[in-house]
């Protein structure tokens, strides 16, 4: 009797899991790796802006700002390298280049304590992010 109960419980559990797996797979959309990387790059760029803002007003120490910007620059450089090897139009490739250059400029600015250069890097980030938004919307309406 107890073996039958265990066998029944086992079957029910297996079917429940299979159903859950199927439901999960059916419910999930799989965006392209490009979309995912764009989201990561945009987040990294926005983080860099926040780091610059905080460093400029003295809310974070220079050693942190430098390390954070270096790490974010690496993320953006990865994104740039990825785009250069994929079949996309020139516009996103140029924007990725701009973001990488802005991140390197920001890191230099923090290293040398140059606030004007940091402000310039911040502007470059903002411009590139705004263009990214336009490119993304254009892609959405005209896939």
């Amino acid at each position: 009797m107890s073996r039958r109960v265990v066998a029944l419980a086992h079957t029910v559990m297996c079917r429940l899991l299979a159903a859950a797996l199927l439901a999960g797979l059916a419910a999930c959309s799989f965006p392209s790796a490009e979309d995912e990387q764009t989201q990561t790059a945009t987040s990294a760029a926005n983080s860099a802006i926040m780091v610059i803002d905080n460093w400029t007003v003295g809310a974070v120490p220079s050693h942190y700002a430098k390390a954070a910007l270096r790490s974010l620059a690496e993320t953006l450089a990865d994104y740039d390298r990825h785009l250069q090897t994929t079949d996309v139009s020139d516009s996103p490739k140029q924007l990725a280049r701009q973001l990488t250059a802005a991140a390197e400029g920001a890191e230099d600015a923090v290293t040398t304590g140059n606030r004007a250069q940091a402000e310039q890097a911040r502007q470059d980030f903002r411009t590139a992010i705004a263009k990214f938004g336009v490119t993304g919307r254009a892609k959405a309406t005209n896939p």
Partner: protein
Amino acid sequence: MKKLLEISLGVVTSVGGFLEVGSLATAAQAGALFDFQLIWAILLGTICIIFLVEMAGRFAAVSKHTIADGLRERFGFNAFLWPLVTTLLVNFLVLSAEIGGVSIAGELATGIGFQWWALPVALVAWLLLWKGTFGLIEKGVSLLGLVTLCFVVAAVILRPDWTRVAVSSMPSLPHHDTATYWFMAVSILGASVSPYLFMFYSAGAIEDKWDKSYLGINRAIAGLGMSFGGTISIGVLIVAALVLGANGITQVDDYHQLPLMLTPVFGFWGFVLFVASLGIACFGATVEIALQQAYLVAQGFGWNWGEDLKPRDDPGFAMVYTVTILAAAIPIALGLDPLKLTIFSMALTAASLPLTVVPFLFLLNDESYMGQNRNGVISNAAVLLIIALGFVLAVVAIPLQIFGGS
């Protein structure tokens, strides 16, 4: 008056010891990407841990057994090996992540890379375990952990839309990044219902020599302490949503992004508070998990154990925390990303919960151990439901996350 003092101290230490790298990282990622939408997962996890902590304390006070001790005695050593090995493995990953958390705090404070901090952190934690007493570890570190309340203060200062916060306490379907949403829900559940939390609590009740007169105190500590602890995690999620998410930082993949959460509210002190919160909370968890590993093995094998004993009186117990803590520091010293390790180990924790929690529920329903203080229907049903949900979500979401769902 004495009981009130004990309750207050118990609640305060539970609050101070609640936040660790898992709950901080998962709440921050969830808040940044999904705004307040995953508050329900923290609430569910908190309800589950309230029940489990209350049960762990009740079991220790009534049966005078720790959980590991009871499982071995009730099911035999062979059956006990499964939850033992699972818990040891999951705890090991979480311990490594906690050492990573303290190491990140070291890097943020000094600029010296986190890899260089792993072994010194392990050494200091080991020294505290070797020389310190249970009271010092339980109360000292947890009291310092009250600094994590800064996230609740920050959340209130940021003035969130409380109606939306309340609405988010009910589960809802995601509008984007579906697989990530469920994976985050699983990770939050894993972070909230870490087995080391209630197992450590049970061992602590034995160390503090609880008896049936402590049942009321136990209930108050479990209910109030864990509720306030859960409030801190919700505070982190709200701050992440209103600071990181609102500034377009939806992907928190880099631990350098985390200190930015508190600076818009507290300025430079926000940075200091974040580093202190991360360092103290993770150091407390490091010591507790290392101790928990030693409790598990010593109780499982029937060795002499007790943090208040001299290491020469319980050499096996001391050896386990020594080896575990040093081994757990190695992946971080080799440069494994602590944030990625944290998220992964929290999801695995959720997946492993049935193996650790279900046998425990058997004990709590066993009259020979619990007498009249056995579990009620509500506590059994609530814990089983949440654990089953966490397990099913983990089985679905972990492969999807690994193989590229969103």
